[in-house]
C-alpha cells in the first residue's frame, strides 16, 4: 500500500504511526526503499508502546497520539536522504579466549574457510572445562567431549593458535581492525618440541600446581595437564633454578630436540582482522572474602572447583574424595550461592551453581557413603534435562535444607560437634536455625567478570553492564553483538552461562561474523556525526570527547577531522560543539527542534 | 495658563524635556527638566560576581566608561581590602588622565567651541565643528582629531580597549606596559601638553579677546550660587584619581571635607514622581527644592566646582592658569558664573596633560608587578573618582563569596541635576517677561545647559552638551501662536 502511494502520488516523505521503531522501522524502511524513496525519508511515530498501551484515559491518550504524530510529521520535513556506506571486510577473525566458547566459535568459522586467530592467555586452551570431571546433567566426562575439539583446533589449517598470549591493542574499524598480540616467552621452542615430556620428568623442582588448585604438584617446566594443547611445556620463571639460581639446566641436557631456549623474549605480533569475538569467560568468586565461611582457615572447607580436582580421575587424589588427612568424609555439606545473589558480593545469580551442586552431591553419594546436606536458597533447574537431574538427585538420599548458610565453624557446642565443621543456617522451611556437623564443606562459588574485563573492554572500546560483564547490543534481539560494530561477545564473559549456552553463543557469534564476512562488506549506520568544515573554529572542545577516537585535530587546517568509519553516532560531540559545526545525520538540530516545537505548541 | 514646552525633539525622543509654565501675567511660573529613562544597574548588578563590576558598570556610559571602570575597580580594592602595587595605581591614573584629555578636548572644540569661536549670535548653520575648523584652520581641526585619537590610543594600550576598558581588577591591573609603549605614551603626552597650551591660547585670543563674552560670563543670568564639590589631595589641590572630597559653601568657605568611604553621611538623593532621575543634595543642609544659596543642599560638581572647591592645581602650568583665571574674573572665589566652567575645563585639560607626562616618565610605570592577589574575605567597599562631569561614587556590598548583595551609585552628571534644572529655569525667567519670548532664549538657555557638559548618556541620549532645542508657545486656547526653531 505504502509502496503504491509512493509511486502513484509521488510521495516525498512517509510517516507511519503505529508501533515502536524498535520493532518495524527496518521493515518500513525496506518497503519505502523498494518503492524508490530513500529509506531515511521515512519517519515512525510510536503511538502504541508509549501511548495507547500505557493508559485507560482515552481522551488524553488521543491528545498525546496527536502530538506524537504531529512531531513525526514536523520532523520528517527535515529528514534528508542518507546513503548507507558499505565498507569492505577483511575475512580474518580474531577470537579471544580458548575456552569451550572460543573453541566452538573458532572451529565454526575456520570450517567455513576463514582464517581465525585464537588467542589464549594460558599455556593451553580448554579453559575451565579441562578441570571438570563430569558435566551436568548428562554426567558425561568433560575431557571426553572437550579433548577432541581441542585437538581439532590444534590441527585446523585455518586456525592460528596463540597461547600464553594476550591482545594489548585493537585499532582500526569494523572490517579493517589491527590486533596487537603479546606472546609471552615459554622458553621452549614450539616448533622443535614434540611434547615427549622428558624435561618434565627430569626437572628436579616440584611446585604446587595451579591447575590442581595447589592440591597437587607440577614441575618448574610443565604442561598444566597431559592433554594440553599445544602439547608444549612452559618454564615457570618464578621457580626454575636456572632463572632463580642460574644452575641446573637439566632440561636442556635431556631435551632430545634442543627445544629449550632460555633466551626467548616476549614478542609482539600484529594481525589484520575484520572482526573479533570476545570469549574470555569468567573468574570464580574468591570464597575467602566471606569470613564467616572460614575458607582458607578451616582445612576441609573447599570450593567446588577444588572438589572437581579431587573427584577427577587424573586429579591429585586420582579421583578419591578425601579430607586433608586422607580419611574419607562421613558427611559433606554443599553450600549454594557463595558470592552470588548477595548484595555484599554479587547481586546476580551465577546460573550454574545449582546444577553443579547437584552434580557434586551426586558424585559424593556415588563415590562415598558420606551423608550429604545441600544448603540452597532456591533450586534453579531450568535447562533441558535439568529438572529431571534434580529429581534424580532428590532420590539419592541427599538432605536438602532451604536457607542461606550464616556461618561455618569448628567451635563445637556439644560433644556431637567435636572435631567437626558445623554449618549454621536458618532452615526457612522449618523456620528454625540448624547446626549441621560435617567433615567436609564444598562451597559452590559463583561466577564473576574477569579481573581484567575492564582493561579488555577499554582495548576493544566496548561497554560493560553494572555487574561488570560485557554489555551486549540488545539483551534479547542482539545478545552476542555489541555497540561496537564487528565486535561480538560470547559465553560467560557476557553473563554467567553453563556449557550448552556458552557453546550456543560461540556458534551464534560465529554465525554473526560469517553473515557479513561472507558478504565481504558491511553496512555502516549513517546516523553519524558530520563536520561542517567551513563552520569549524578549531576550538578543540570536541577533540577529547569521542570515546572511539574518531575526532582528531588537523594542525595544518586548524580544524577538527572526523573519521566517519570510527564514529558510532552517540552525538556527544554534536551537543558539545560551541560553533554548531557538527551535525548528527538523521538527528540534526533542525529535526529535533521541529519535534520539540510540534510537541510543545 | 500658557505652556512653553521646550522639546529637544518630539516626545518620542529620549532627550531631556523642558516644560515652562507661565502665569497669567505671562511670567515664568515654573520650569521642569525631565529625564525619561532608567536602566536599573543598582538592582540588576545584585547576584553578579563583584569582580565583574568594572566591566558591567562601564556600560552605564559609553562616553565616560573609563570613569565608571576605574571607580568600580577602586571599589573592588576596598571590597577585597587589597592595596595595589604602585605601578598599578599609576597605570590607572595615567589611563585616567588620558581620558580627561580626550573628553575635555571633545567638549571644548566639538560641543562648546562653536558658541565662542563663531559667536553666540552667529546663525546655527555656522555654529558647528566644521565651521570652527573653517575659522581656526583645517590643520587645527585635524590636530583636534589627532590629539583626541592619540589619547584614546593610550587608553587602549593600558585598558585593552578604546571604549569600555577591561584592565581593572581588585589589587591592580591585568597587564603591565612595555618600555616601548611607555616611550610612545611619553611622546603622546608631550604633544598633548603643547596642544593644551595651544587650546588655552585660542581661548585667550578668541574668547577673552572679546568683551562681549567676558560680560556674558560675568552676567547674572548665568550666575547661580550653590555649594561646590571636588576631590582634593592632601594639599587641597585638584585630583581626579584619589583624595578626600571637599565641599565649599557659596562664600568659598570649606563646609565639609571627608573620605569618600563616608559619603553616605554627606549626600542624600531626592525623588520626584515626574522624572526618572534623582536629585543628590548635601544631607546636612537638606533638600529645599530647586533653589540655590547657603540654605539649600543643592551643589555643583563641575570643572568650575572642582576649582572652586580646591586651592590650586598640582602641576605648574595648570597652577599658573588657575591663578590667572580667578584674577581675570574679579579675583573672587568661588566663581558662580556657569559659563566660566568652560575656562575651568581648559585649566583641567592642562593639568591632565601635564599629569600624563609626569606619569609617563615615572620610573615605576613599567614595573611588571601590577597585581596584588587579594587574600581577605570580600565584604564592602566604596570607590570614588572625579569624572569630567563630577564626583562619581560606586559602593558595593557582597557576601563572603564575593557575590554582589547591594549596589549604590552616585553618577557624575547627576550631581548637577538640580543645578542644571535651576539654570534652565533661571535663564527662562531672565528672558521671558510678560509673555514676551525673545528669540535669544534659545541660544541662551542652550548655553546655560551646555556649560555643564551634561552627559546624560546614562539617562538621556545626547552626547555631552548637545541639546537641540525647539520652543513652542501656546495661547490660552492651547494653540501654537509662535514657533521658534533652530536654525
Amino acid at each position: 500500500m505504502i509502496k503504491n502511494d509512493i509511486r502513484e502520488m509521488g510521495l516525498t516523505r512517509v510517516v507511519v504511526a503505529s508501533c515502536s521503531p524498535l520493532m518495524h522501522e527496518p521493515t518500513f524502511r525496506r518497503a519505502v526503499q523498494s518503492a524508490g524513496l530513500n529509506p531515511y525519508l521515512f519517519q515512525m511515530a510510536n503511538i502504541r508502546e508509549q501511548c495507547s498501551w500505557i493508559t485507560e484515559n482515552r481522551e488524553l491518550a488521543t491528545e498525546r497520539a496527536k502530538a506524537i504524530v504531529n512531531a513525526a510529521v514536523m520532523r520528517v520535513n527535515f529528514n534528508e536522504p542518507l546513503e548507507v556506506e558499505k565498507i569492505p571486510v577483511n575475512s580474518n577473525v580474531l577470537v579471544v579466549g580458548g575456552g569451550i566458547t572460543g573453541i566452538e566459535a573458532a572451529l565454526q568459522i575456520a570450517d567455513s574457510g576463514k582464517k581465525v586467530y585464537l588467542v589464549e592467555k594460558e599455556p593451553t586452551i580448554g579453559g575451565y572445562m579441562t578441570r571438570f570431571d563430569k558435566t551436568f546433567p548428562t554426567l558425561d566426562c568433560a575431557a571426553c567431549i572437550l579433548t577432541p575439539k581441542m585437538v581439532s583446533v590444534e590441527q585446523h589449517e585455518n586456525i592460528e593458535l596463540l597461547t600464553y598470549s594476550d591482545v594489548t591493542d585493537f585499532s582500526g574499524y569494523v572490517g579493517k581492525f589491527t590486533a596487537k598480540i603479546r606472546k609471552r616467552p615459554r622458553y621452549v621452542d614450539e616448533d622443535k618440541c614434540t611434547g615427549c615430556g622428558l624435561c618434565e620428568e627430569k626437572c628436579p623442582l616440584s611446585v604446587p600446581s595451579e591447575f590442581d588448585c595447589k592440591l597437587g604438584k607440577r614441575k618448574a617446566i610443565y604442561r598444566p595437564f597431559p592433554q594440553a594443547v599445544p602439547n608444549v611445556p612452559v618454564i615457570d620463571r618464578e621457580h626454575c633454578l636456572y632463572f632463580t639460581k642460574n644452575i641446573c639446566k637439566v632440561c636442556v641436557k635431556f631435551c632430545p630436540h634442543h627445544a629449550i631456549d632460555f633466551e626467548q623474549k616476549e614478542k609482539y605480533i600484529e594481525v589484520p582482522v575484520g572482526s573479533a569475538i570476545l570469549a574470555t569467560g569468567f573468574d570464580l568468586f574468591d570464597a575467602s572474602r566471606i569470613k564467616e565461611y572460614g575458607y582458607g582457615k578451616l582445612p576441609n572447607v573447599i570450593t567446588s572447583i577444588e572438589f572437581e580436582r579431587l573427584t577427577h580421575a587424573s586429579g591429585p587424589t586420582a579421583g578419591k574424595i578425601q579430607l586433608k588427612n586422607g580419611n574419607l568424609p562421613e558427611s559433606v555439606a554443599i553450600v549454594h550461592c557463595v558470592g552470588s545473589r548477595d548484595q555484599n558480593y554479587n547481586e546476580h545469580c551465577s546460573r550454574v551453581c545449582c546444577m553443579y551442586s547437584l552434580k557434586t552431591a551426586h558424585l559424593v553419594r556415588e563415590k562415598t557413603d558420606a551423608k550429604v546436606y545441600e544448603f540452597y536458597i532456591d533450586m534453579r533447574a531450568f535447562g533441558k534435562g535439568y529438572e529431571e537431574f534434580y529429581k534424580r538427585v532428590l532420590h539419592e538420599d541427599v538432605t536438602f535444607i532451604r536457607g542461606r548458610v550464616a556461618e561455618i565453624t569448628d567451635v563445637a557446642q556439644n560433644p556431637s560437634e567435636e572435631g567437626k565443621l558445623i554449618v549454621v543456617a536458618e532452615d526457612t522451611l522449618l523456620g528454625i536455625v540448624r547446626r549441621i556437623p560435617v567433615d567436609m564443606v564444598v562451597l559452590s562459588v559463583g561466577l564473576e567478570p574477569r579481573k581484567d574485563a575492564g582493561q579488555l573492554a577499554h582495548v576493544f572500546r566496548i561497554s560493560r553492564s553494572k555487574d561488570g560483564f560485557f554489555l551486549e547490543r540488545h539483551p534479547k534481539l542482539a545478545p552476542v553483538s555489541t555497540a561496537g560494530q564487528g565486535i561480538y561477545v560470547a559465553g560467560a564473559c557476557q553473563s554467567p552461562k553453563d556449557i550448552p549456552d556458552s557453546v550456543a553463543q560461540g556458534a551464534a557469534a560465529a554465525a554473526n561474523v560469517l553473515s557479513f564476512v561472507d558478504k565481504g562488506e558491511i553496512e555502516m549506520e549513517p546516523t553519524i556525526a558530520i563536520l561542517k568544515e567551513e563552520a569549524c573554529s578549531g576550538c578543540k572542545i570536541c577533540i577529547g570527547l569521542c570515546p572511539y577516537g574518531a575526532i582528531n585535530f588537523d594542525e595544518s587546517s586548524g580544524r577538527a577531522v572526523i573519521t566517519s568509519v570510527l564514529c558510532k553516532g552517540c552525538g556527544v560531540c554534536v551537543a558539545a560543539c560551541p560553533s554548531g559545526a557538527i551535525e548528527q545525520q538523521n538527528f540534526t538540530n533542525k529535526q529535533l527542534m521541529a519535534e520539540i516545537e510540534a510537541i510543545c505548541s | 495658563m500658557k505652556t512653553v514646552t521646550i522639546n529637544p525633539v518630539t516626545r518620542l525622543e529620549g532627550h531631556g524635556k523642558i516644560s515652562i509654565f507661565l502665569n497669567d501675567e505671562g511670567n515664568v511660573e515654573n520650569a521642569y527638566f525631565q529625564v525619561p529613562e532608567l536602566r536599573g544597574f543598582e538592582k540588576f548588578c545584585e547576584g553578579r560576581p563583584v569582580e565583574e563590576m568594572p566591566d558591567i558598570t562601564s556600560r552605564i556610559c559609553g562616553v565616560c566608561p573609563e570613569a565608571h571602570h576605574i571607580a568600580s575597580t577602586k571599589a573592588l580594592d576596598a571590597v577585597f581590602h587589597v592595596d595595589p602595587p604602585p605601578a598599578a595605581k599609576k597605570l590607572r591614573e595615567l589611563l585616567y588622565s588620558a581620558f580627561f584629555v580626550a573628553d575635555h578636548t571633545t567638549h571644548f572644540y566639538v560641543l562648546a567651541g562653536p558658541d565662542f569661536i563663531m559667536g553666540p549670535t552667529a546663525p546655527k548653520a555656522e555654529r558647528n565643528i566644521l565651521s570652527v575648523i573653517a575659522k581656526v584652520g583645517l590643520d587645527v581641526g585635524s590636530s583636534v582629531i589627532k590629539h583626541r585619537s592619540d589619547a584614546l590610543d593610550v587608553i587602549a594600550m593600558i585598558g585593552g580597549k578604546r571604549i569600555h576598558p577591561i584592565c581593572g581588577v581588585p589589587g591592580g591591573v591585568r597587564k603591565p606596559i612595555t618600555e616601548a609603549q611607555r616611550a610612545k605614551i611619553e611622546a603622546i603626552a608631550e604633544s598633548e601638553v603643547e596642544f593644551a597650551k595651544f587650546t588655552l591660547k585660542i581661548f585667550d585670543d578668541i574668547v577673552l579677546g572679546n568683551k562681549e563674552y567676558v560680560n556674558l560670563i560675568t552676567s547674572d543670568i548665568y550666575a547661580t550660587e550653590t555649594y561646590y564639590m571636588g576631590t582634593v589631595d592632601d594639599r587641597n589641590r585638584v585630583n581626579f584619581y584619589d583624595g578626600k572630597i571637599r565641599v565649599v559653601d557659596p562664600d568659598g568657605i570649606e563646609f565639609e571635607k571627608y573620605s569618600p568611604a563616608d559619603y553616605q553621611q554627606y549626600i542624600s538623593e531626592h525623588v520626584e514622581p515626574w522624572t526618572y532621575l534623582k536629585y543628590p543634595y548635601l544631607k546636612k543642609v537638606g533638600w529645599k527644592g530647586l533653589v540655590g544659596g547657603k540654605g539649600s543642599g543643592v551643589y555643583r560638581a563641575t570643572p568650575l566646582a572642582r576649582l572652586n572647591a580646591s586651592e590650586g592645581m598640582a602641576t605648574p602650568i595648570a597652577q599658573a592658569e588657575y591663578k590667572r583665571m580667578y584674577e581675570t574674573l574679579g579675583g573672587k572665589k568661588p566663581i558662580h558664573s556657569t559659563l566660566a566652567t568652560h575656562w575651568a575645563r581648559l585649566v583641567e585639560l592642562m593639568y591632565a596633560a601635564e599629569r600624563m607626562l609626569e606619569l609617563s616618565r615615572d620610573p615605576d610605570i613599567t614595573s611588571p608587578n601590577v597585581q596584588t592577589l587579594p587574600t581577605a574575605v570580600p565584604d564592602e567597599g566604596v570607590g570614588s573618582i572625579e569624572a569630567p562631569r563630577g564626583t562619581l561614587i560606586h559602593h558595593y556590598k557582597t557576601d563572603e563569596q564575593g557575590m554582589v548583595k547591594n549596589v549604590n551609585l552616585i553618577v557624575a552628571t547627576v550631581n548637577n541635576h538640580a543645578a542644571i534644572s535651576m539654570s534652565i529655569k533661571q535663564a527662562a525667567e531672565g528672558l521671558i517677561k510678560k509673555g514676551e519670548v525673545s528669540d535669544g532664549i534659545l541660544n541662551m538657555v542652550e548655553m546655560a545647559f551646555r556649560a555643564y557638559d551634561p552627559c546624560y548618556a546614562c539617562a538621556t541620549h545626547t552626547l555631552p552638551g548637545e541639546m537641540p532645542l525647539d520652543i513652542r508657545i501656546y495661547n490660552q486656547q492651547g494653540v501654537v501662536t509662535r514657533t521658534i526653531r533652530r536654525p
Partner: protein
Amino acid sequence: MTKPKIAFNWASSCGGCEIAIFELGTKLVELSNKVDVVFWPAIFDYKYTDLEAMPDKSIDVTFFNGAIRNSENEDVAKLLRAKSKMLVAFGACAYGGGIPALANTTTRAEIFTSSYQETQTTNNPEKIIPRTKVEMREGVLTIPEFYNTVKTLDQTVDVDYYVPGCPPVGAQVEKVLNQFVDGNLPPKGAVLGASDKSLCHECKRIKADRKITKLVRSYQTIADPEKCLLEQGIMCMGPATRGGCGGICLDANAGCRGCYGPLPNVVDQGGKMLSALASVFETENEEEMQKLADSVADPIGTFYRFSLAGSLMRRIKK
C-alpha cells in the same frame, strides 16, 4: 548616482556604539562625503518632527543601537522601521539585549523599589515612584513607560542586518559602513562586521588539551598570557562567541565575555557555552562534577552577559 541616505539612532544603551562611529574620526569625515546623514540626533541637530514628516522608506539604512527598555524606545524603533528601507541592529544591545538586558534577571517593581527607595543615599519618606503621567499644579507632565522586560530590536520590529559587539570595533564599523555605501550586502538577516568562526579561531593563545579540572574567579589568579584561559580555569566565552573583534580582551589578559554573540549555527549562546564547558569537565566523579558546576559563580551573568534578551529563555520567572 545619489548618495545613500543613512540615519543613526540610540535607544537603551550607553552610547558607546555612537562613540564607536564617532571614533572613525577622519575616516568618518571621508565617509560623510559618500552618504547623506539624514538623521543623527546625538551629533547633528535633527528633530523627530522632521523624521515624522519624511515619507515612508525614504531612509536607505538606519543603524539602530540600544535595547528596547521603555515605550519610547519602542515607538522610535517603529517609526524608524517605517521610514527606513533597511534597519540594522547595531551593537550588542540592539542585537541581543546587551548589558541592559541583565535587568531581565529582576523586575520593574524590584528596580523601582531599589532605585527610588532602598538605595542607601535615597531619602524618600513618601515612597514616591515615578509615574508616566503626573498632574502638576501648573499642568500635566509625562514620561515613557518603563517595561518589565528588556527586548531586542528584532523582538520589536523587523530587522534586516545585525552588527554585534560592545561596542563594535572600529575596523569592523568602517567595513560595515562601506558595505552599505558600496551596496555589496549578503542576504537579509545576516550578521555583518564579524567573523563566522568563534573567537578561538583568532585567539593567539596556546590550546593544549581541553580538560577542565578547576574553575577559578578571575581575581583569584594572575593569568598566564600565553596559555588558553579556559585551560587555566579562567572563564572565557571565546568558544561560543563570534570572532571579529581581534581578541582584544584576550590580549589584555582578560577572558572573553561574549559581546559578539552566538555563532551562525547556534540558537542560544549561553546554552551552547554551558554544554561545551561542562562537556570538558575532566571527571567521572559526580561530586567533583557538582563542585565544578558550582564553581560557575553566576551562570546567567556568565553565559548570557550580552545575550539574555535574545536568548531562548529571555528573562527569569517572576
